[in-house]
C-alpha cells in the first residue's frame, strides 16, 4: 500500500509518518512512500483555484494508482482524495475514472486499521488522561469517530475523557486561520476552553493541521496540556517532545 504522508506531517512532524508506517507494518502491510507526492491540493481547491487543484490531484493520482490501498494520517487530506477528487473532473472521463479508482481505495489511517484490517491489538503504553478532538473532514466526510477511540482503548495506561463539543471545528480550516485570524482565534480559544475543562492532560487528534492550531493556542495560553497525533500514541512513538514543546 501507498502512504500518503500529507504535507504537514512531511514538513512539521515526521514522527507521525513513522508512526503510521509502524502501525501499518505491524498490521501486516507492505508500505511504500512515493517520492512524487507533495500535497493533496486542498489549499488551492478550497481557495477556488480549481486548475491548480486539478493539476495536483493528477499528480497524486498518478503517484498512487498502482497501489492496492492509499492510506494517510489525516481525515482532511484523505477526505479530499476520497470525496473531492472524483468531483474535480466532471468533463474529463479518463481522469474521472482514474480519480474514482484511487478514491475507492483511499482511507484515513484509523478507519483503515479498524474498518478494513480489523486491527484489535495495539502494543503501546501511554500513562495519561487524554481527550480526543474529532477533526471535521474525517468526521463528516469519512465517518471517522469510533475507530480512533476503539484503537486508543487498547493502549495500556491510557484513559479517555471526552471534552464537550468535540465535534466542533477548532478554527483551523486550512488557509482560513490566516485569512480570518480573529475569528479563528475565537474558535480555537473556545476549543481550548473545552479541552481544559475536560481535565485531560493530553490532547489527541487525527489531523496535524488542527493539532498545530490547538497546540499553538494551548502554548500561547501557557497550558500544560500536551498534544500528540493519535498515531504517535498508538505506535508507541511518544519519546519525542509533544507538539509545540521544546526538546
Amino acid at each position: 500500500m501507498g502512504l500518503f504522508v500529507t504535507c504537514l506531517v512531511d514538513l512539521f512532524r515526521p514522527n507521525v509518518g513513522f508512526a503510521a508506517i509502524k502501525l501499518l507494518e505491524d498490521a501486516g502491510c507492505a508500505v511504500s512512500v512515493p517520492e512524487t507526492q507533495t500535497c493533496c491540493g486542498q489549499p488551492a481547491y478550497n481557495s477556488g483555484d480549481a486548475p491548480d487543484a486539478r493539476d495536483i490531484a493528477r499528480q497524486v493520482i498518478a503517484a498512487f494508482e498502482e497501489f492496492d490501498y492509499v492510506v494517510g494520517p489525516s481525515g482532511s487530506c484523505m477526505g479530499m482524495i476520497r470525496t473531492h477528487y472524483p468531483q474535480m473532473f466532471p468533463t474529463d472521463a479518463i481522469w474521472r475514472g482514474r480519480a474514482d479508482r484511487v478514491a475507492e481505495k483511499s482511507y484515513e489511517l484509523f478507519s483503515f486499521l479498524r474498518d478494513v484490517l480489523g486491527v484489535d491489538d495495539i502494543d503501546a503504553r501511554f500513562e495519561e488522561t487524554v481527550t480526543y478532538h474529532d477533526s471535521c473532514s474525517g468526521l463528516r466526510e469519512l465517518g471517522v469517530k469510533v475507530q480512533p477511540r476503539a484503537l486508543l482503548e487498547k493502549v495500556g495506561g491510557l484513559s479517555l475523557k471526552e471534552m464537550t463539543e468535540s465535534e466542533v471545528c477548532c478554527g483551523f480550516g486550512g488557509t482560513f486561520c490566516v485569512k480570518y485570524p480573529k475569528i479563528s482565534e475565537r474558535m480555537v480559544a473556545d476549543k481550548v476552553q473545552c479541552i481544559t475543562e475536560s481535565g485531560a492532560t493530553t490532547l489527541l487528534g487525527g489531523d496535524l493541521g488542527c493539532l498545530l492550531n490547538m497546540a499553538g493556542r494551548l502554548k500561547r495560553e501557557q497550558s500544560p496540556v500536551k498534544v500528540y497525533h493519535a498515531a504517535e500514541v498508538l505506535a508507541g512513538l511518544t519519546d519525542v517532545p509533544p507538539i509545540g514543546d521544546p526538546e
Partner: protein
Amino acid sequence: MQSRAHEFKQRSQAALLDPELKRAMGKAKGGFQQKRRIAIDALPEFEALRHAAREIKEHTLHHLDYYLERYEQAVHATGGQVHWASTTEEAREIILKICRDAGARRVTKGKSMVGEEMAINEALEQSGFEPVETDLGEYIIQLANEPPSHIIAPAVHKTKNQITDLFHAHHQKYGLTDRVTEVAAIVNEARTVLREKFLSADVGITGANFLIAETGSSIIVTNEGNGDLTNTLPRVHIVTAGIEKVIPTLEDVSTILRLLARSATGQEMSVYTTFSTGPKRSGDLDGPGEYHVVLLDNGRSQMLGNEFHEMLRCIRCGACMNHCPVYQSVGGHAYGWVYPGPMGSVLTPLMVGLDKSFDLPNACTLNGRCKEVCPMSIPLPDMLRKLRERGHEQRLSPPRVRVGLRLWAYFAKRPKLYRLATRMGMAVLGRLGRRRGRFRRLPFAGGWTDARDLPAPHGVTFQAALKARGVRK
C-alpha cells in the same frame, strides 16, 4: 436592504470585541442545538422525511413555472390577487400602491425575510405609513433600528438588559414608565403596546413559509400568534414571498412541516401553523377584504438554472447558523445583509453580487456541520467553494493571497524542487525553533502567530528522514 457585506472583516472584528454579543450568542447556541438534537433523536423517520422533502422540493423546482401558474390560478379562484416582482424595487412599489389604494395609515407586519430583502419598512415610512413589527424579536429590533441578526430569532444578539433599556426608552409615551426586568413582564408590556396596533391597523403584511399550488393558500409558522392577528384583523392582507416558496399540495407541505420546526427550534410543530386562503368570504366572521400576494424573484430565477439551484430548497429554518461556529462567534450583523450564516454566505453573493460580498463564502472553515444539520440536505460547503471558484476566476481575492497561492502551487507541482525547498526551509525553521519548541512571532506568519504560537518543525522533513534511514522508496 442596503448591503454592507463588503465590510465583513471590520464588522466581524468589531463583533468579536462585543462582550454583550458574546453573552447573548452563548446563551442562545446551546438551547438551539440541544433542543434540535432531542427533537430529531425522538423522530426515527427523520432521514426518510429529509429524503422525501428533498424530492418534493426538487420536483417543484424542476417544474416551478407550472406550479407558480397553478398557484396564481388558485389564488384568483379564491378572490385574491397575485403580483409578480422581478426586483425589490418593483415589489416595494406594488406594496406601496396597495397601501395607498387602501387609504392606509398603520401597517402591521408579521415576520418576513423577503420584506427585509426589499427593505419594506423604510419604504413604508418614507411614504408616510406607520409600519409596526409584531413578532416580538422583530419589534425589539425595530425599536433599536437594527436589522435582524438571525432568520428565525431576529433579536438573538440582544441580552435581556438591553431589551429592558429599549422598552424603557420607547414605551414611556404609552404611559408605561416602569422599568420591566422580568421576561414575563417584558413580554406583557410588548403585548399591551402591540394589542392597540393590531386593532387599528389598516394593512397587514406577512411573509410565507410555504405557498400551496393546489389551494392557493399561504402558510406561516409562528410561536406568538402575532401572524394570525396580522392577517385577519386589518382590511387588507399582503403576503410577500420568494418564488421558490411554492409547494404542490397540502400533503407535500405536511412532510416538510415535520422537518421545519424540529430543525429550527426543536419543537415538533411551532405553536401556530396558520393557513390563509383568499379574502374574507360571505359568511366568514373575520378576515381581510382584500388578499394580495407579492411574489419576488430577486435573482432566484437565475439560480434555478445554474449550479446553485439546490439553494432554492432552503426552508429558512436557521439550523445552519445555529450550528456554524463562525456565525456563533461573530453574530448575524457581521454578514452585512438580510441572510447571515452559511445560507446567507451563499445567498448574499448571488443576490447582491460576489464582488460586494467576497468575504462571506471565504470566511468559513468548510467544517461541514451546516450540511450535516440542514433538513433539506443542501450542500452548503460545496456551494461556498463554488463561489470561491467564481471569486478566483474574477480575480476578487487580495493580490497577496493570489501571489502566495501561485508560488505554493508552483512548488507543489514540482516534487523534486518542492523537496529541495522544503528541506532547506524546515532545516532553518527547525534550528531556530528547537530550543523553545515553538515560535511566538515569525515574519510573514502574523496571521498565525497573532492568535497562537507556531509549533516548530523537527527540522528534517519526513521524506528526508526516510531517505536517511535508507529504508524504502
